[in-house]
């Protein structure tokens, strides 16, 4: 017997141990899962194949656009902001100047819109919207009567807490104050499958993207209150926030600003048609974030 273990021999012997094959049942489970899943459309030339390591999350002052996470949003009331006006009818004609996104539930005409509400964005965000979209509390959606059912959804969010587990969410809130903390909290959220973080750019601004869906085989009925939650409203206010469901894909881009991070989110549900997916992609590609004029912190 060796008087002293050979380190290399030990390590290599140890690494040789263990299973070398995936069970057949697991292959079958994968096949069942992909039979029910559509492949994700690639959004824009700025999507990078290179997957950034978690160490690159800290982008400092760089803006990160976080593209929508799929889910439904529950807000206790109407969001209002500078220049926002509630109107029961859509704006008549698109103008060259961006239109302030109205508060409340409003059917929107096509045009370029501007979000300046500091409750949902830390920097002014503009985007081009085709016809047929509706806004409800600054959540834009198309193809259904409610963002909870719509096949495509677009929104911006200010997130100051993230649930540690989307299914067993009660009592699992983790506060986040920086872009790096936010990305890390989303990337490691329990009961989720996450692709990313990935370094991307939108409108020339560097961003970190995460694509989140619900873990395979998760039965929503076993979750707290039979719901899956991503994060609450700022505060935290758990009466509102983002929820998600199996089969949905949330793409989230985190933007860091001088006043802290916020996210741009999109939701793509399995009911979305190819045209709707393309429309959502075009919307994302039109996003511009004005980092030069970050919005002042909301007054308390």
């Amino acid at each position, binding site marked *: 017997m060796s008087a002293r*273990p050979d380190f290399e021999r030990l390590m290599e012997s*140890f*690494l040789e141990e*263990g299973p070398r094959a995936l069970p057949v049942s*697991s*292959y079958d489970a*994968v096949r069942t899962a992909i039979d029910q899943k559509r492949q994700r459309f690639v959004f824009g030339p700025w999507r990078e*194949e290179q997957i950034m390591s978690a160490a690159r999350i800290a982008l400092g002052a760089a803006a990160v656009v976080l593209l929508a996470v799929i889910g439904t949003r529950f807000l206790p009331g109407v969001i209002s902001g500078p220049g926002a006006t509630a109107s029961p009818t859509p704006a008549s004609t698109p103008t060259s100047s961006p239109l302030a996104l109205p508060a409340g539930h409003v059917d929107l005409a096509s045009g370029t819109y501007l979000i300046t509400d500091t409750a949902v964005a830390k920097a002014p965000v503009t985007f081009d919207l085709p016809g047929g979209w509706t806004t409800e509390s600054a959540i834009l959606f198309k193809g259904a009567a409610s963002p909870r059912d719509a096949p495509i959804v677009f929104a911006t969010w200010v997130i100051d807490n993230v649930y540690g587990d989307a299914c067993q969410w009660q009592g699992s809130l983790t506060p986040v104050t920086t872009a790096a903390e936010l990305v890390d909290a989303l990337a490691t959220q329990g009961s989720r499958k996450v692709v990313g973080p990935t370094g991307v750019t939108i409108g020339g601004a560097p961003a970190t993207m995460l694509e989140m869906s619900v873990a*395979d085989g998760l039965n929503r009925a076993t979750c707290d209150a039979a719901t899956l939650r991503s994060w609450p409203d700022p505060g935290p206010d758990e009466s509102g926030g983002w929820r998600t469901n199996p089969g949905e894909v949330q793409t989230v881009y985190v933007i860091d600003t001088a006043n802290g991070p916020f996210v741009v989110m999109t939701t793509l549900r399995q009911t979305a048609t190819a045209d709707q997916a393309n429309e959502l992609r075009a919307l994302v590609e039109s996003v511009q974030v004005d980092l030069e004029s970050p919005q002042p912190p909301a007054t308390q």
Partner: protein
Amino acid sequence: MHAALVDRAKQGDREAFDALARLVGDECMAIAFRILRDADRADDAVQSALIFAWTDLKALRDHDRFVPWLHRILTRQCYAEARRARRMHAEIRVLPRETQLESIGYDTVVERDAIERAFRRLTFEQRAILVFRHYLGLPLDDVADRLAIPVGTAKSRLYHATAALRASLEADARTPTTSEEQLA
């Protein structure tokens, strides 16, 4: 062969992806287990990685890079699995009989136990780099590629992982009484 299947799978051919998964899945399981040291979690990580690979396959531009790309996804899934709340169940580990130890490279059960304890003390990032470098035998450039880190970082991480493993083994070797008591 991978490239042809990847091409068909990118166009939505589920049969092609299924065939692709069965070609690469076993190696993924081997990698995931050796990082996580838990067969159930490794299984979950591999399944998640394959499903993500299906949904995101259209983003893969170079078909020949499917395996490195998949390994990156797999590594991230392993890290995510490791961070999730640990399941409360007893891990029953079957130790090899003394007569089998020599054939698999160990001198004693103590030796085998020591390396396992030392490995489990490593971070998952350290485990991953050792697995890709010493189990798969990949050159450092390829290891860095699969872990999505710069080559310099890979070199440094490998050095520190090896040093940590060695130090842990040496620390255990200085307390042989404890190890033997654990075997009793």
